[in-house]
């Protein structure tokens, strides 16, 4: 009965989404206030019924109702409760339902927290989100119904993929999807503005916190996924340029560009067409990510659904949503930008360059991701594009960007004086070059020019982000608003990431060793002794666990326990790496195979500063949090509260 309630709620939600999508949009275009007023109640009802549907599916998992096909495929009575809940989004059907749920919640949030936004603009935003949701719900209902019954009912389920039985993996998809779907708000803002034909600075101010929030969730989701890959896949890498990783990274890059472009649109009323295009692009790439993962067009570890009907449906959906928005753009954008500009040396220029470089990086990654597909489509053979390509095309635009960021932060709007900026940054440049070159060489020794460039770039970001706060503490600089502080914190976080990436890739030690029980190997400064193996029983797996004691200069450091697990139901072996994490380095041991004669193979890795990568990402998210709490976003614009979009006036602070 519960699954039928879930299915019925989803059908009701679909009807409400159509109401939310069609009535307000038509009403806003033709001037029917009663139709426009449907937007908020429809969005609320839509969210409630999607939530009921999602709860029904969750309930079927908690109760282990194996008469539901999707539950039988992805759960098992032996699965711990937490993973029974996480298993709801462990497969194709449930993760789509999660997508729909999050979209409905974002729309609900827009309905609830946008009282300052003019009625017409808000109705249009909700309308666009309603249509996006309706399309996705049709996809779920027609091709991927999670509530299908199974007969005869199996005694037990197929279990959740053991790779996904991990706390980080339980939260990675919801966070990532919240970010993906969150860009639908920016997209809806853009489409709504293009429908009305007017974009002003007030519009950008309204759109900014929503975009930043989506970006924060996406950042957190990507990092959690990367962290999961790092310790769970057992390879010790943290980024593989896998098509699915790229699919989440491209919207992140465009979303980052969008945040900066919105800043220019808000402060100076410029870059309107760029902002619109980035808003469309960020969400389109999120949809494309879903398409690439869900259709089976690209094969990777993640792409577990491969069904041409589904692919075709998503393709049509993509054509309608993205194609529609881009056509609207081609029609409206030419009349938006005004000629008046800015001097070549100004903050506008730096932000423009920043956006060009971010977009170029996203474009080159897109090219590498799709290139094999294009070649295959033209019958030119099967190829794969690997990390060397992606690393090169990523580093080339990113290095100049990092250098420009530091300067851009200290350049004023409109027209800046190069000598002024130079004078302000002189001290910072000296500190950066000294610390960026001297400290790493003293600690790890000389590696390569690229290593030095990486360290200097990271140090430059950190130092240049700290200039204003330090001056403020010395009582010199201007007051720092939340918005500015958020920007400085986020840039500081990026600097930490750059340091972490540079150190890990330059001074990483990675070795595969055969070790006889009782013997030791030396990795870097560390001596690792293989003390023996033991059998361990987990809740739904059996494991062989190794005892590895680690010493450094004769002093005990830690004892690590890498495991090889066999999950009972799916009979699949899994490697659980053991990691000793310190701020300055990770020591990583993964268990290989029993080589007989009492020896085992191990993969041992020493990764300096990798924690900076995770830490820096968290700092970036913190920067986002600080900036969305800026007071000016909470201030309603009284002059425009009741006015229609077309009359929205601008008052900047």
């Amino acid at each position, binding site marked *: 009965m519960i699954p039928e309630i879930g299915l019925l709620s989803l059908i009701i939600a679909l009807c409400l989404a159509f109401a939310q999508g069609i009535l307000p949009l038509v009403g806003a275009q033709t001037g029917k206030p009663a139709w426009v007023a449907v937007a908020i109640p429809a969005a609320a009802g839509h969210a409630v019924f999607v939530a009921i549907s999602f709860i029904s599916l969750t309930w079927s998992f908690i109760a282990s109702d194996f008469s539901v096909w999707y539950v039988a495929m992805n759960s098992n009575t032996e699965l711990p409760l937490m993973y029974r809940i996480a298993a709801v989004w462990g497969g194709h059907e449930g993760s789509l339902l999660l997508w729909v749920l999050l979209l409905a919640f974002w729309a609900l949030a827009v309905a609830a927290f946008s009282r300052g936004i003019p009625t017409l603009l808000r109705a249009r935003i909700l309308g666009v989100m309603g249509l996006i949701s309706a399309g996705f719900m049709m996809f779920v209902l027609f091709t991927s119904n999670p509530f299908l019954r199974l007969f005869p009912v199996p005694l037990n389920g197929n279990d959740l993929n053991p790779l996904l039985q991990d706390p980080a993996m339980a939260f990675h998809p919801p966070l990532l999807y919240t970010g993906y779907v969150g860009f639908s708000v920016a997209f809806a803002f853009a489409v709504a503005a293009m429908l009305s034909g007017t974009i002003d600075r007030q519009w950008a101010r309204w759109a900014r916190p929503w975009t930043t929030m989506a970006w924060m969730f996406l950042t957190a989701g990507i990092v959690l996924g990367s962290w999961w890959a790092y310790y769970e896949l057992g390879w010790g890498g943290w980024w593989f340029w896998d098509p699915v990783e790229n699919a989440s990274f491209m919207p992140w890059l465009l979303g980052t560009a969008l945040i900066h472009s919105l800043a220019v649109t808000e402060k100076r009323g410029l870059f309107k067409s760029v902002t619109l295009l980035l808003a469309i692009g960020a969400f389109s790439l999120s949809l494309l990510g879903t398409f690439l993962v869900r259709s089976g067009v690209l*094969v990777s570890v993640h792409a577990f659904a491969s069904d041409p009907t589904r692919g075709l449906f998503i393709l049509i959906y*993509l054509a309608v949503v993205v194609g529609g928005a881009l056509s609207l753009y081609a029609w409206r954008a030419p009349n938006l930008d005004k000629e008046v500009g800015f001097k070549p040396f100004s903050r506008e220029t730096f932000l423009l360059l920043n956006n060009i470089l971010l977009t170029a990086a996203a474009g080159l990654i897109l090219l590498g991701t799709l290139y094999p597909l294009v070649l295959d*489509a033209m019958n030119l053979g099967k190829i794969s594009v690997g990390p060397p390509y992606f690393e090169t095309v990523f580093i080339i635009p990113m290095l100049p960007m990092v250098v420009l960021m530091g300067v851009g932060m200290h350049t004023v709007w409109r027209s800046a004086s190069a000598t002024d900026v130079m004078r302000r940054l002189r001290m910072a440049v000296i500190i950066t070059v000294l610390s960026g070159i001297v400290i790493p060489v003293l600690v790890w020794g000389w590696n390569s020019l690229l290593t030095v460039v990486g360290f200097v770039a990271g140090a430059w970001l950190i130092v240049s982000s700290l200039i204003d706060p330090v001056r403020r503490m010395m009582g010199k600089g201007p007051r720092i608003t939340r918005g500015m502080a958020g920007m400085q914190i986020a840039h500081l976080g990026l600097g930490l990431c750059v340091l972490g990436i540079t150190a890990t890739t330059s001074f990483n030690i990675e070795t595969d060793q055969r070790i006889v029980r009782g013997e030791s190997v030396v990795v870097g400064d560390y001596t690792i002794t293989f003390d023996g193996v033991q059998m361990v029983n987990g809740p739904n797996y059996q494991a062989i666990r190794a005892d590895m004691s680690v010493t450094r200069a004769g002093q005990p450091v830690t004892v690590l326990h890498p495991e090889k697990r066999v999950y009972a139901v799916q009979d699949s072996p899994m490697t659980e790496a053991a990691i000793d994490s310190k701020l300055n380095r990770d020591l990583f041991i993964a268990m290989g195979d029993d080589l007989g004669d009492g020896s085992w193979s191990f993969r041992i890795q020493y990764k300096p500063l990798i924690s900076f990568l995770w830490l820096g990402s968290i700092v970036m998210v913190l920067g986002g949090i600080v900036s969305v709490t800026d007071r000016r976003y909470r201030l309603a614009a009284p002059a425009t509260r009741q006015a229609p979009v077309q009359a929205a006036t601008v008052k900047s602070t």
Partner: protein
Amino acid sequence: MLRFSFPILAFVALLGVFLIGLQRDPTYVPSPLIGKPAPVFNLPLLSDETRSLGTADIQGKIYALNVWATWCPGCRQEHQALMDIAARTDIPIYGLNWKDDPDAARRWLVQLGDPYAATVMDLDGRVAIDWGVYGAPETFLIDAEGIVLHKHIAPITMEIWTTDFVPKIIAARASRP
């Protein structure tokens, strides 16, 4: 004006690529062995571990080589089809039992029937590496000169045998009177 239409044009082109990409089988990987001499092996027989069988013994006649294992669900799925094919064709099908437990493999053939002319054991999987096997089941077709004619990945069916294997067998026989 055209500047602003560029995104939609690029997007339409991309859609076209996706539409073509969707109709292709992403798991299809052509074997580099096709048209090349089959890798040689000489392995112990499953039926009698003291005796061995090698490519030298079975060459001179068109044959099929099926890679299987008891731990592979796809092999169980295709087993009946192999039985049917073996009953109808005059091509000998040899089994390459890959990284398997010999006792379990023998029990399997007793329980499900034995479609193979003979089965050899590749306990450490080295021969499978030579043959470029990356997942069981896989089925190869080798001609009388020892050249690989065809490779099929995934469970075989009578239909696949008739459409993909039989024409190649006929062509190979026609070219060699």
